[in-house]
């Protein structure tokens, strides 16, 4: 996934300028990392260079002049094709929690205590997200993105719970490998 595809998707709603695209982004992807303005402008320039977007004109609206961009035919095909592709299930495990638990075992630390503290942090975040999505008047994108985040945190927690239960044998195994 790239900023290119996200901006193409946001331009599909109609011509817009950089400032408004950033706002559209933050509104449609409320739990995502906010887009930086600089990133929006450099990406827009590359989209124009590649023929995926074009300048429609400028509008000043009383304030400073702003460049309006719109999707080209090619850009429209590109974003539709991208959104239709099935995403490959992640082939590698590259997660910080997992890695830290393994490193904690390797360095002779206390993985159980680490998992307990991590669980508390996850639960705290899950409570925030639950409050967000159940607040009166929460809009669809907020609910969808909170659900997405909640399910991923829940998956982490289930892995952490199983790991906690396995820790005795897991630690024994690592020590055997060390001795071999």
């Amino acid at each position: 996934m790239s900023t290119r595809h996200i901006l193409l998707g946001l331009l599909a709603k109609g011509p817009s300028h950089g400032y408004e695209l950033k706002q559209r982004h933050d509104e449609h992807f409320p739990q995502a990392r906010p887009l930086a303005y600089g990133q929006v402008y450099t990406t827009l320039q590359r989209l124009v260079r590649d023929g995926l977007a074009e300048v429609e004109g400028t509008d000043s609206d009383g304030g400073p002049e702003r460049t309006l961009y719109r999707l080209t035919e090619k850009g429209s095909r590109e974003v539709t094709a991208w959104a239709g592709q099935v995403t490959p299930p992640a082939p590698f495990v590259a997660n910080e929690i997992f890695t830290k638990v393994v490193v904690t075992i390797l360095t002779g630390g206390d993985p159980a205590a680490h998992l307990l503290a991590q669980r508390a942090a996850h639960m705290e975040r899950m409570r925030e997200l639950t409050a967000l999505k159940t607040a009166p008047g929460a809009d669809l994108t907020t609910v969808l993105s909170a659900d997405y985040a909640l399910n991923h945190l829940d998956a982490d927690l289930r892995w952490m719970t199983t790991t906690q239960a396995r820790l005795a044998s897991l630690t024994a195994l690592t020590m055997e490998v060390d001795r071999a």
Partner: protein
Amino acid sequence: MSNRPAPLVAARDLVKSYGRTPALRGACLEVGEGEIVAVTGASGSGKSTLLHCLAGIVRPDGGTVTYDGKRVDLLPEDRLSELRRTDFGVMFQFGQLIPELTAVDNVALPLMLAGTARGTAQERAEEWLERFGVREQKDLRPGELSGGQEQRVALARALVTGPRVVFADEPTGALDSLAGEQVMTALVGAARASGAAVLLITHDATVAAYADREVRLRDGAVVGAEVPA
């Protein structure tokens, strides 16, 4: 711990065995007035036994249970059933509604047992069914309800008497996530509105996230109790 108000419900050093099987080994727990506490833990860790002791359904072998300053574990049986009727609401994984009664009669029953006239009890029951979006199902029997509808009727029955504490044992355990979300939203919304405390048992973190804090049980004792936010 120091400046918190006296807890509404408190368990201290609870011990309980079934024959030679230990279910609780020194479990401690406090629930404040209006507080929503989730108890989580693996299957067999003692969650249901803890809830049964707190709700006065089972007597512990050792330790104390207090409610509003009273020793629940020492109350004689008749006082205990009165307390359960007036101050506690209880809900389980499977609604445990009476199969022969309609939804509205199931909800009206606790009020009628407490002496409310049938007509008034039915009116109040219907208000609760309405609130939880199952009024249209009021004349159906439990067997004719979906799992989510059944749990919302069970929730109405638990809340209709205006309890100060709701004990809910895996109330969403048999539901898919959207139906579970409806039940949790209804439970938490109603408890917050009435100021009732909730002891919520679940093995599902997405359900525990509706509570103010989480208490984890392992082998009949508390392992990690978070401080409320």
